[in-house]
């Protein structure tokens, strides 16, 4: 007897196709069981046949031809732990015989599971031979009915299951369809490559200023950080934030409009979950930060956002307002803008923001902003918060943070500024997610925000200098086209002749040892581009860019960068 184990996608018709392969070779199936496995969407077939090993090998190869089949193994009994379940209904009209039957059942470790006036129902779990021999002994009493499940079997060694599921993603829910951000994937891949330089992740190389750390320490010493605070954050911080947004963002906010969050990331996901229903549509102006896309998909139970891509015109990213408006329909409920934009480095102009505001007003939409890079604008550009336009102040949810402004990415503090009626709803999600933001970080953020815009402005100067380096280095090749960089600290150039930027990014990492993020990760319009973070030290930045330029130059003639 040979046992064949088959793992296959749980789809209609698979059994039919499997059975057909045995039929074609006229092989009788001795037993067959099918059931769910530890993986959602994958079932396991256990089939036993009485034929030679060679034939079984051929059969299992053909089983692989069935598109839905993932893994097949063949095993002899000695390689398996196996068993089946049988129900035997024995005639027992004579009460004297009952006792004998029960003894026999006992002997075989069976179980009497039901008795009536003329029969006994026995349940037996065991190997086929055990069941057969028990059956033989019971025969004289009169067998009325036998039901057997057929064999189920487990391999003793894992060896034959190698590679079983390596091609299958875990799929507990729609979450499995979401991608882990390409930024993280590359950062991760980069770590495994010796001597590689990462221009992938946007973590500034600055350290948190000491005065901020000191105030955190002080708060700890005073035991201010030992207990939960209000989920909205401590009042002093909320007030400082309100003042900051009135001064720097021209948003007419009171501390009641402020909620402190676990970084801008939490602020965004809480907002999406707080204001959108799964069927609502959210328009995302792309290319856009990949996590936004994931966050919206999560809030929409896996439904994707609706993308409106900007157009690259004469070295500038331009938003086509008509196109934006035409994406609005009765299901649309909000527009997300990242300003200054990650990854394009675009800073939206007053006209563009006005246009967006008008559309939101006309169609009654929320506006959600991610303004984490608010202080980093260059070449005389001005950062405008859309919530400063009074007509849309009530429908705008503005999100900021101290991570980039004060080099505090590790402290995880962000904040939301919004109309109280909206904030109340977002708070419910926030409360469920984090209860309250880490208190020690709140005190650190407090001293940061109270110190005013000097620190971020100093950083901005330094970024502006590095921005020049990017222009300088990338202009050494005509294979890379760099659009204007107005803000944030990202360059988002197009690499000529690159079709598959994912493949390109991985190849650059492998061959040139520099990590950049493939543009496709940022949604529609990002294809063929890569994102470069220039918040790195000058030395690293120059070397990383040099490697990139050298790589594209060396591969000029190879269209797909093999």
């Amino acid at each position, binding site marked *: 007897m040979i046992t064949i184990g088959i793992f296959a*996608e749980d789809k209609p018709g698979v059994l*039919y196709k499997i059975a057909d392969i045995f039929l*074609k070779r006229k092989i009788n199936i001795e037993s067959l069981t099918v059931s769910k496995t530890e993986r959602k969407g994958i079932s396991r077939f256990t089939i036993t046949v009485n034929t030679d090993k060679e034939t079984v090998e*051929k059969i299992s190869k053909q089983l*692989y*031809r069935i*598109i839905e089949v993932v893994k097949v193994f063949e095993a002899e009994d000695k390689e398996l732990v196996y068993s089946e379940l049988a129900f035997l209904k024995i005639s027992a009209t004579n009460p004297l015989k009952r006792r004998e039957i029960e003894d026999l059942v006992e002997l075989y470790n069976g179980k009497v599971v039901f008795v009536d006036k003329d029969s006994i129902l026995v349940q037996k779990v065991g190997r086929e031979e055990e069941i057969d021999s028990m059956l033989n002994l019971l025969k004289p009493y009169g067998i009325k009915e036998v039901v057997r499940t057929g064999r189920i079997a487990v391999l003793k060694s894992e060896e034959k299951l190698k590679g079983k599921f390596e091609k299958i993603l875990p799929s507990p829910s729609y979450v499995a*369809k979401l991608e882990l951000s390409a930024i993280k994937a590359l950062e991760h891949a980069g770590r495994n490559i010796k001597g590689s330089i990462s221009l992938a992740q946007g973590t500034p190389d600055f350290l948190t200023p000491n005065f901020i750390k000191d105030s955190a320490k002080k708060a700890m010493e005073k035991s201010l950080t030992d207990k939960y605070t209000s989920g909205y954050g401590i009042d002093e911080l909320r007030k400082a934030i309100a003042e900051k947004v009135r001064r720097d963002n021209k948003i007419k906010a009171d501390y009641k409009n402020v909620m402190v969050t676990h970084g801008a990331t939490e602020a965004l996901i809480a907002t999406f979950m707080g204001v959108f229903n799964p069927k609502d549509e959210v328009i995302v102006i792309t290319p856009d930060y990949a996590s936004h896309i994931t966050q919206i998909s999560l809030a929409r139970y896996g439904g994707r956002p609706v993308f409106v891509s900007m157009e690259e015109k004469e070295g500038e990213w331009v938003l086509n307002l008509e196109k934006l408006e035409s994406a609005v*329909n009765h299901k649309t409920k909000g527009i997300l803008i990242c300003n200054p934009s990650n990854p394009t480095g675009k800073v939206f102009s007053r006209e563009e923001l006005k246009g967006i505001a008008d559309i939101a007003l006309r169609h009654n939409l929320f506006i959600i902003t991610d303004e984490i890079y608010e202080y980093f604008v260059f070449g005389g550009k001005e950062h405008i918060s859309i919530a400063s336009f009074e007509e849309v102040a009530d429908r705008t949810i503005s999100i900021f943070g101290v991570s980039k402004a004060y080099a505090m990415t590790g402290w995880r503090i962000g904040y939301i500024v919004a109309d109280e009626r909206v904030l109340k709803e977002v708070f419910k999600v926030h409360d469920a997610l984090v209860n309250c933001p880490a208190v020690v970080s709140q005190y650190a953020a407090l001293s940061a925000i109270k110190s005013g815009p000097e620190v971020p402005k100093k950083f901005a100067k330094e970024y502006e200098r590095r921005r020049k380096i990017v222009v300088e280095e990338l202009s050494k090749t005509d294979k890379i086209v760099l659009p204007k960089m107005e803000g944030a600290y990202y360059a988002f150039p197009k690499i000529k002749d690159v079709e598959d930027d994912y493949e390109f990014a991985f190849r650059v990492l492998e061959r040139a040892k520099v990590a950049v993020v493939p543009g496709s990760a940022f949604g529609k319009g990002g294809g063929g581009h890569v994102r470069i973070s220039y918040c790195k030290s000058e030395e690293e930045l120059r070397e990383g860019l040099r490697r990139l330029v050298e790589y594209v130059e060396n591969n000029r003639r190879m269209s797909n960068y093999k």
Partner: protein
Amino acid sequence: MNKAKSEKRKAKKLEVRTKPITGADLVVRTLIRLGVDTVFGYPGGAIMPVYDSLLDYTDKINHILVRHEQGAGHAAEGYARVSGKPGVCMVTSGPGATNLVTAVADAMMDSVPMVCLTGQVPAQVVGTDAFQETDVIGVTAPITKWNFQITSAEEIPFVLEKAFYIAVSGRPGPVVIDITKNAQFEEVEEDKLQHFDPKKDSPSYQPIYEPNKRQIKLAGELINNSERPLALIGHGVIISGAQKEILEFLEKANIPGACTLHGLSAVPVDHPCYAGFLGMHGNYAPNMMTQEADLLIALGMRFDDRVTGKLEKYAPNAKVIHIDIDPAELNKNVKAEVPIVADVRHALQALLKHIKRRERKEWFEKMRKYWKIEEEKVIKSQISPAQDSIKMAEVVRRISELTEGKATIVADVGQHQMIAARYYQFKRFNSFISSGGMGTMGFGIPAAIGAKVARPKEEAIAIVGDGGAQMTIQELGTIAQERLPVKIVVLNNNFLGMVRQWQELFFERRYSFTYLLNPDFVKLADSYGIKAKRVKERKDLDKALEEMVKTNEPYLLEVVVEKEDNVFPMVPSGWPLDKVLLSPEGLKS
């Protein structure tokens, strides 16, 4: 023909609609997006919504109306084999779908990428024996690489993308997609639908293209150490587009290479390494050499019984390197010392780095000796016969000369098929198309239609028997309506020749129901408005063939050939290859 390229085929620009559209529209738009430019089909109730949409996209998709669904299937096969793109056909439910079945099975056997869309009754009544309902999924499950029933419009893009991916990737094959009528009527928003990503959405099916490096190294060593190697060139060489690689391989290693039926034209016949055509009616040299070889290098072929003869006696002295993209083919019929799962082109590229040139004078000497024997004993009398009646072989050879070996030859099934394979001197890669695995009579005429549509600039000549011709003769209507300059040569022996040959040799000449009373092919063609001519005597043959090749119109040429001629050499079924017969005399001993 380049597979990687055809897979990467960029979607044609087609703006995505944000307003709801019908499933039928979506089917057509998805086809266009997937690069489909030609559909062979036949309408009917259950597919009418899609047909209605087709009318709006006639600038992007060329629909060719056949005369019978089997014709659509074979035409799609011809199209696919010439272009390397999946052939697409579209038919209605019930009889439409069952008429297509032969062609689907044919494509399965010959690894032809094909996507067949069949209409189906509305999902609500599936399973109730509704009018024109057939369980198409059940019927085609054993003869498709994959099949699927679409019951709602939102599945359309995902499933069609998956279908095309499966059809062309790995070992190509036919995919049947059954679309219920309600799904064709349903309205959906195109931009909201899910798309298929082969990396993520196909957990189980992941074809392997790259060979295992260690196996390649081993193969290289075997080749370098071999004194009498023989490469067996199969369909895989053509499918993978290894046009350059195969020649480089044979030349660099200095190895003779023989072609299977579907491997023909992979190597030009005048190439010094070309050893000939393998199998039952193949050339003498490669069959004899197989038995003497110390190494067989099987490239994208599957050791069909028509190639191996008696398995137990096959290649007794040879080690075997077997390269195929389908793992199920390895060790299926012939045990391989070095099995390699890979795309042949990729494998050859890898192998090229490991092989060294080696003189094999004696081995090539032997090959030429065997060729001489066949020339003397078989070929001469076939192409320049002494008797009056015309032989199939001389017709084929004349066509070969007139077209300089560069036409696409589409053969039907029978004696004429073997003769075409043997006597046409192929000089152009991927120029021989025929039904191999199934041996489907009736394949020739419709497949030639598909081949012509795919490569309109190149001559497509169908070589068919009087029996097979009549199985799909109605497609003359398609040729006429499309004004396709397909050339058809009917080699008329008034017999089901191949069967008659077997009756003569193995059934004591008892001709049981193999004689045919034929129509007047010339008049028949004429009734469709197709130019036609009949040749009965050798003196008229050249002129007629020249006229046929010269015209830029559909043309049917009937050549009345010797009635009871036989194809030789022959390895009778179940005989070892070295017992190949050069004439019927051999049978007596």
